[in-house]
């Protein structure tokens, strides 16, 4: 009898112990975190701005965490593939995501998207790059007003190039249409550089691209910047007016790069990672490298980033609704 009863009891005890361990697991992890390599998933190809920012930060983060930090590229679907991989990763702080606005824009465009921003906790908004409104050198428009006047005379005749449906240049184009009351025809070209190429060749009339893409052309004079999205004029381009000056404060847009963790990541780990990213961004070597890569450091912490992102989401949902972008 004794023996017979003993067996189930031990088994039972084992279960209780297992459950206890499982319950404690997050807490245990947080105390010891990190004990292995931390992966940063970049949902874009190597060489993209997210890749560059993540790779600049990785060594500093690694030094602070005492474990290797590696960047893993999971490109595809305009960012959807990698973002979804990050969403499905275990929320243990060993897989985090680096991404620009598409994390927010893809769910607005694609009703079947299997993630939303709610699946993630922001860790930091690391950097940003201002948006520029550019036309080709040979075009007749010298100022934003001239372009708007022409577009009003010929509704739907002028074209703007974007990096594809649901990308930032597309959303910005639609926002510009909403705020200025002009009608432009959207031509999706596949990538920012393809949009720049088509613009340089005169195949489209105007584009709204990041400074990273257009900078060298503005410097060389092959593209003319009608406006730059910024509060103040840029140090390097004192002659380019800002969207705020032109009376369109809503068009003060930045293309940010943020770090995210899966939503259920324990709070202590989120705090630790956010602190590490924030510290790394303050490093002078990092600052120099990021400045070289044509980006500006923002360094928003989790709360600040969440607030900013909520505002972004509100703005872009409005654009998606008015322009009827979703399908």
């Amino acid at each position, binding site marked *: 009898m004794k023996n017979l009863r003993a067996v189930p009891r031990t088994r039972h005890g084992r279960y209780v112990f297992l459950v206890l361990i499982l319950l404690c697991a997050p807490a245990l992890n947080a105390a010891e975190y990190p004990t292995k390599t931390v992966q940063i998933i970049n949902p874009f190809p190597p060489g993209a701005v997210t890749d560059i920012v993540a790779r600049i930060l990785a060594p500093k983060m690694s030094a602070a965490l005492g474990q290797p930090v590696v960047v893993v590229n999971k490109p595809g679907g305009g960012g959807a593939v990698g973002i979804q991989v990050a969403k499905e990763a275990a929320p243990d702080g060993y897989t985090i995501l680096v991404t620009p606005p598409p994390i927010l824009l893809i769910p607005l465009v694609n009703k079947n998207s299997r993630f939303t921003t709610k699946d993630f906790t922001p860790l930091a908004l690391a950097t940003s790059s201002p948006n520029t409104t550019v036309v080709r050198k040979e075009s007749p428009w010298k100022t934003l007003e001239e372009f708007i006047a022409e577009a009003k005379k010929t509704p739907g005749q002028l074209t703007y190039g974007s990096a594809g449906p649901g990308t930032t240049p597309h959303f910005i184009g639609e926002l510009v249409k909403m705020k200025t009351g002009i009608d432009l025809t959207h031509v999706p070209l596949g990538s920012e550089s393809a949009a720049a190429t088509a613009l340089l060749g005169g195949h489209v009339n105007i584009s709204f691209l990041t400074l990273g893409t257009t900078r060298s052309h503005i410097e060389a004079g092959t593209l003319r910047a009608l406006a730059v999205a910024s509060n103040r004029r840029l140090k390097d381009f004192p002659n380019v007016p800002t969207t705020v000056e032109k009376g369109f404060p809503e068009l003060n847009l930045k293309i940010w790069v943020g770090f995210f963790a899966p939503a259920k990541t324990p709070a202590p780990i989120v705090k630790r990672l956010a602190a590490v990213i924030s510290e790394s961004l303050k490093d002078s070597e990092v600052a120099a490298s990021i400045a070289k890569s*044509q980006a500006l450091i923002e360094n928003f912490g989790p709360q600040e980033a969440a607030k900013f992102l909520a505002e972004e989401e509100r703005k872009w949902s409005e654009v998606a609704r008015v322009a009827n972008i979703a399908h």
Partner: protein
Amino acid sequence: MDLLANVALGFSVALTPANLMFCFLGSVVGTLVGVLPGLGPVGAVAFLLSLTFKMEPASAVIMLAGIYYGAMYGGSTTSILVNIPGETASVVTSLDGYRMARQGRAGAALGISAFGSFIAGTLGVIGLMCLAPLLGRAALSFGPPEYFALTVTGLTLVSYLSRGSMTKALIMTTLGLLAGTVGMDPISGEERFAYGILTLRDGLGLVPVAMGLFGIAEVLENLTTVGQHAIYETKIKGLLPNLKDWKNSLWPIARGSCLGFFLGILPGPGPVIASFVSYAVEKRVSRYPEKFGTGVIEGVAGPEAANNAATAGSFIPLLSLGIPTSAIMALFMGALMIHGIQPGPLFIVKYPELFWGFIASMYVGNAMLLVLNLPLIGIWVRLLKTPYIILFPLILLFCLIGVYSLNANVTEIIIMLIFGVLGFLFRQVGFEGAPFILAMVLGPIMETSLRQSLLISRGNFSIFFTRPICAVLMVLTAAFLVSPLVTAKRKR
């Protein structure tokens, strides 16, 4: 004189011991990467990009460029030896190259591809040096309508790619075009034929499909006859091309170099298209077109030259305009940006030592690759004597790892296997893979450029005939289509 001074400046940068070493390192790694199936230049440059962050900018681009053209050199090796395209640009090489290998002429095929690559690479660099700024601007005149016209011309090449029934080739072309429509519609962002599979949203990858249709299918086919008869002619006929081979290859190499260089400048998969075009041209001008596909050296020399010249050409838009025209050029741009150098219209003026050093290093690299590849031929040819019980599993393993390494995506392995089975079945009923691949490359460009053009012209089709480049291409297409009829009549 200016040019001479610049070239001298370039060599003074390229010939420093450190840069020579990086150039050599890049070439070796590139060759290795090219030989390994699947893992193409894009992957290799991507993985090794982070190593260059601590280097001098010139050394960084010199090493990465070495990897790129090294991979283009090496890519033909597995195409010729085991019918597995090391990268997509060498799909065409396998058509005749692999046949040559089975006839015991692997040495000649590998030799002509190394020499052809060297000659084309060198001519390409000369072109790059003299014409970069001029041609960069010319590339800009290619807008969506021009691309559409180009793809229409490109599809007529199908008639030169098949050996058997034309109907079967047309079926494969249509299937290839259909395969190209899988994934996110680039104009509206809607999903097509993806059925909720995330990987398919981005479309079928060219590399997994090509490796399945050619490599896996080839091994599967060989498995049906294992032990019955030898796959390769055991007697090896020479390790290098003989005089007759050279005589036959000289013009194809020259033509391939020019074609490749100019097609390489255009955004998109330049080297792949260049190799297909060169093959078609060689078959068209040949006195024995019916022999193409049975192991004709011209079918190796031309396309190999074309894809290597295209490598040089593809740098032009990046270096003269700051426009990355392909994934690999975007990587180069990233490598430069991390050092705070932004390629653009002012690049050559602002960073002369970088530009000219880079160009000079391409000469050096090409020479190194030739020296590196010629002795390797002997080793490769001997590798074919590996017993099949080891060779086949190894080939399959490298295909598996190679495809996985592209995007760290298991689904792509499964795609490769599915296309392996399809390719095997297609072979059993006499359908060929080359038209499928060509159509799959051209299809998406054709569809998007057609729809972009119509958006720009507001639905007006005249846009395809009124623009000068379009008009020329359309006339060319008509000529291509009519000319076989004319020759056929004359024969009668």
